[in-house]
């Protein structure tokens, strides 16, 4: 069974009198353990699609089965719980809490699902270890480089053992070398921990790390093919 099953979802934004179709009946399924890249120009609907995929937004119509359960009609707090347990987010701008140590940033998702203080610290340290930042837990984001900050964000997405990581242009703010390091980390997590990784990117070099490329244009999927060349 596919981990993500999208059936004919549409998203319509109303801007006064005008209705804008951000997504037109998109259907897609992604299997557990896939590494997919979503590409497309601005306004193609890929961001809207990612928001729905990440349970941050609800589709106007259509169905979304996440691990076999329909989440398209869930309420705000139920969606929050799904995000907490099943989806790890990695953003272009890192989105770490300022003035808060790396370890506490990693602990953040566990604040909202009742993990005990003791267990939190242990799991956060383990997650930092996985991204190669053990020992940096007490640094604040401002004391870390961009690559390190993004790895703290990845550690945060791992800490609740979410089966899916959604990365929205994760290398957009990083230089080429650091980008490569971060992408290697995603590949490692994908192959070693069988985490489903879905990433949005403009860059073909970055998309090349994935094994499937989905292209959006004007709210439709225009191509969806496995990457053949390595």
């Amino acid at each position, binding site marked *: 069974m596919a981990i993500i099953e999208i059936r004919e979802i549409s998203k319509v934004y109303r801007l006064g009198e005008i209705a804008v179709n951000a997504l037109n009946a998109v259907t897609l399924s992604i299997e557990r353990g896939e590494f997919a890249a979503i590409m497309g120009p601005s306004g193609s609907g890929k961001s809207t699609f990612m*928001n729905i995929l*990440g349970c*941050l*937004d609800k589709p106007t119509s259509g169905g979304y089965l996440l691990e076999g359960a329909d989440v398209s009609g869930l309420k*705000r*707090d139920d969606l*929050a*719980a799904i*995000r*907490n*347990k099943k989806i790890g*987010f990695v*953003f272009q701008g890192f*989105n*770490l*809490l300022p*003035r*808060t140590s790396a370890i506490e940033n990693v602990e*953040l*998702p566990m*604040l*909202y*699902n*009742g993990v005990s*203080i003791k267990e939190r610290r242990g799991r956060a340290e383990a997650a930092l270890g996985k991204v190669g930042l053990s020992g940096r837990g007490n640094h604040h984001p401002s004391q870390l480089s961009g690559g390190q900050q993004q790895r703290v964000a990845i550690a*945060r997405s791992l800490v*609740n053992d979410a089966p899916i990581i959604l990365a929205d242009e994760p290398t957009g703010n990083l230089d080429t070398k650091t980008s490569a390091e971060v992408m290697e980390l995603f590949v490692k997590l994908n192959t070693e921990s069988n985490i489903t990784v879905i990433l949005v990117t403009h860059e073909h070099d970055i998309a090349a790390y994935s094994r499937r490329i989905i292209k959006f244009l004007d709210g439709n999927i225009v191509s969806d093919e496995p990457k053949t060349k390595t």
Partner: protein
Amino acid sequence: MINIPSTIKISFRSLRVNKMRSGLTMLGIVIGVGAVITMIAVGTGASQRIEEQISSMGSNLLMILPGATTAGGVRMGMGTQPTLSMGDAEAIQKECASVSYVAPNLGGVTQVIYGSQNWSTGITGTTPDMLYVRDWTLSQGRPFAEEDVRNASKVCMPGQTVVDNLFGNENPIGQIIRIKNVPFTVIGVLDKKGQSPTGQDQDDTIFIPVTAAQKKIFGTAFPGMVRIIMVKAKSMEDLYTAEKEITELLRQRHRIGDRQDNDFTVRNLTQAMQASEQSGKIMTLLLGAIASVSLLVGGIGIMNIMLVSVTERTREIGIRMAVGARTWDIRLQFIIESLILSLIGGAFGIIAGIAGSKMLSMLAGWPTIVSPLSISLAFGFSGVVGIFFGFYPAYKASLLDPIDALRYE
């Protein structure tokens, strides 16, 4: 499940980030709570003083005054007609069931002499029951007895002020003082009572048997005449009945016809005092209410800052929502933050309130009483203010759209 200890920790951190701002916001609550505590302390102090003065007068007290004389159409004022007598006092004691003690009173101001010292003071000719009527005790010696009244014995009980002025450090018991040149033996000293509600020194007096006052000092137009009769009712509830019984009895004794006015007046002192006590309590309430307005203003300050804080931290709220914070996780975080602000402010406010009350006592000389009740009330109220004014900003934060919040710059 909501994680309270972690939420508290987060709140403290974000308050520390803006120390100046948090401090100033707290100041509003500090002033509010301080003002409430101080004002209530002032009010309670004032009503406590009134209460003390009332109880120093004696409780459940009635005062019977003679009526006014009318000479050629000119009415001479209360107490000018010599209508009350010892017989009236005795009759009240015997006939009125709701009365416990009766003490007649005949007196005046005159000079007393001891050795080379002299002093002008109020002489009160009365019976031993006066001590019960006024709830008065002796600090030393013994009171005069019924027998002394029958024999018009020349014995006296001076108050503390008189003792201080005549005797200094000498022991007054057994000494002889001269009142209008009549020698009286000091047999007891009245306990210190302090000021009356009207500000008179109650200790500046000498008690002597009423008969001695009538026959040896003041002389009276009619035998057995007295100026005032003081009556103690059996209880607070009996005061009204006693007033009625006495009025009826005295009308009968003075042979006053149905359509004639009384030739005496019964005054209920306790009721008058209670009215002033009541107004003291109302004043406390009023002061507290005015002070709580400043607490309210402090609360609005908290709300203002929390609204700013929510806007500033929109992105943080977005991040928290993305990683799974539910509506109440976000709400509680901001409510707890505002609660911490107001409770810390409240704690400092208690200190400020106590210090303020002490200062008023010292500088202005007002009696102030800081009651534990007013402290807990003000502190509790500051907590309520924190929750109340924190709720709207928290509610606003929880309604943010996570996508917009994450994009917020």
